[in-house]
């Protein structure tokens, strides 16, 4: 640290005569000592800022620029058209259908991730289950998290195939009397897709909440027990408030991530049947790589960015409040 400071200030032994007085050294060079000192923090963050600009800011600005042009990428002389691309996608009913379905998919996923994750975390935290069984359950419950989106898509495509295991079980139990086309019917596709995503995502909550549960002081429960609180009251007044910071953090992050989910949707339904599972990510992808309308796709991507950033705002606010 000191060495780095020395180099930045131009006072390193290798750069100056060792015998030179300090006051003279400070005057040497183009910048004054004060200015150099002020620059130090900026130089420290410079590498990160450079990488951020190169990998995040530059692509974002480029996409935004594309969204204001006509025929970006595809035309050699693309021209500035202002907000025309935004007007075009806002007047497309499929875009609004995608927005609605993205919100349904996201909200349902976040809510059920939380409920299932919390239930499993409580189960794994309880002392009433045999430790060996608890260890086995811990491994089993975390499995979905270990699979990639491709594997998850294949698993659920096979399970929910009209001739798949789920239908066989449902027919055997007389719950349904026909082969349900889960991913192939406009009535069930979005729910089936959301279900697969819920299954794939709850372990994040489970692991985080389990860590949170293990960090709650036992004395709180003992004191509540002495005061006559029952299990439900302990859960409501101790567990939930203690877990709330974790719940808010991961729920907000999950909301942002789920809103942008693409691989699972693409590999299971591709946004179909018709537009029944069209979400903003598939809508944008089709504009870019099927229609080659990169300007419209950029406008759609900016809309997703704005939606994500609005949630990010709450996340940052929450983090600051903590």
């Amino acid at each position: 640290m000191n060495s780095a400071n020395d180099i930045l200030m131009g006072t390193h032994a290798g750069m100056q005569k060792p015998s030179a007085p300090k006051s003279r050294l400070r005057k040497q060079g183009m910048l004054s000592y004060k200015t150099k000192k002020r620059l130090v923090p900026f130089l420290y963050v410079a590498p990160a800022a450079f990488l951020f600009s190169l990998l995040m800011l530059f692509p974002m600005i480029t996409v935004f620029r594309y969204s204001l042009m006509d025929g970006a990428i595809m035309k050699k002389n693309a021209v500035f058209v202002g907000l025309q691309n935004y007007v075009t996608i806002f007047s497309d009913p499929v875009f609004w259908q995608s927005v609605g379905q993205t919100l349904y998919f996201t909200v349902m996923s976040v809510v059920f991730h939380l409920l299932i994750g919390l239930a499993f975390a409580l189960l794994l935290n309880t002392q009433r289950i045999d430790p060996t069984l608890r260890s086995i359950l811990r491994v089993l419950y975390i499995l979905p998290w270990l699979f990639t989106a491709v594997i998850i898509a294949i698993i659920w495509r096979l399970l929910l195939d009209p001739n798949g295991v789920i239908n066989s079980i449902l027919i055997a139990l007389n719950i349904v009397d026909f082969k349900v086309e889960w991913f192939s019917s406009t009535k069930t596709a979005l729910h089936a897709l959301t279900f697969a995503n819920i299954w794939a995502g709850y372990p994040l909550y489970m692991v985080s909440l389990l860590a949170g549960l293990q960090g709650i002081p036992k004395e709180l429960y003992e004191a509540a027990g002495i005061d006559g609180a029952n299990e439900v009251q302990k859960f409501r007044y101790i567990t939930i408030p203690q877990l709330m910071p974790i719940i808010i953090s991961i729920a907000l992050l999950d909301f942002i991530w789920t809103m942008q989910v693409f691989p699972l949707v693409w590999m299971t339904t591709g946004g179909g049947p018709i537009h029944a599972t069209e979400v903003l990510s598939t809508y944008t992808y089709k504009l870019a790589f099927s229609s080659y309308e990169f300007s419209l796709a950029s406008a759609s991507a900016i809309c997703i960015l704005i939606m994500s950033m609005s949630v990010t705002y709450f996340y940052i606010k929450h983090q600051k409040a903590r």
Partner: protein
Amino acid sequence: MNVRKYLATMKSAAAVWALCTTCAFAETNIEFIQWWEPEMPAGALRGIMDDFEAANPGIKVKLVSGPYSSTRDQIVVGAASGTLSDVVGLDGAWVNGLSKQGAIASMDSLMADAKYDQSQIADIVKVNGQSVMFPLASFVYPVFVNLDMAKAAGIETMPTTRTEFAAAAKKMTNADKNEYGWVLPLALQNPGGIQNDVMSWVWASGASMLKDGQPDLENEAVVGTLEYIKALQDDGVISPGIFAKKEQDKVEEFVNGRVGMMVDSLAHINLIRERNAKLNFGISALPAVDGYTGKRGLPYASWGIGISDSSEHKAEAWKLVEYLMSPEVNGRLVSIANAFPGNVNAKPDFSKSDPLFEEAFKIFQSGTLANEFVGLPVAEDLMRDMNVEVQKMFDGQQTAKEAAANTQKQWLVEFAK
């Protein structure tokens, strides 16, 4: 003396350096992007390139290979940034967009300069009158029939008309045993099902979906085909899960004996044999409308080849195209790829191939290649638009006539761009 020796050494070194530099400058490196290398036996395409390099000293070919979809994305990006490889493997569905983008060159002048005999090319794909792509190898889509299922259903001959096909599909269907007569993949991820499994019925009967280069989807042939396919669905002969089914699912169901018939690429014969060696199956041309006596249109997919407009070595690139299109090399390439040649004089050697290829070659020679999506603007998008409308028809939201009319409207917008 020492100085003289030193000078002589320096002169020799300079001469050697100059010679090497001249050699290096004399050598031209060209890039060839395609998705074929991974689909061919290991080293097969490289071997052909090595032979080309031996026949054309001074030209080195660098193969840029990848799976189909990533190659497509690479080509789109390369076309946009002006860094497209010199020689480009093309799918007919991309040609129009790339040509309009100015990314692929017209090969007319190159052919004229080389006094190339165009009559030997099976098909030249043109955009705005410019020759931009040669189909190097074609993969025809016949009907695959599970002969054991057909025999068990009492079907003695391959269906040649739509009526015979519908009757055969009905006989082969036994929903209780999860057996169906036909399989139709209409997933939206890759809307190729519209081209291979739906519109192929139109082309098989010599009809068209275009008129004067413009969409003509409301004609009797197209509407009739949609009505026919809808009737097959209403009869319950199509394997369930149509809207989420992909091409690989289709092949899988056929391999497992769950469907009696499918329209599929000949390229899958080896795959089917590998997956189920016991499967007894045959092939036949796609059935036509009753009473049709003309030449059967054979749906096909192809490995097309073209030259990048931004290439600085167009002459060398043309040499490679010409080499690959020559009867001997083309014959050798398609024999390895189990495809049909792009050069009419090429004689593929099917002696080491599956006996069905020889049978398929007869079908190929008696019919005509037909794929009207080749060269159309945003062809994949057109297929997807139609796919959605056909799905709505299957879902009972509209009739075949309405599906055709709605697709027509959307296509006209795309064609007008």
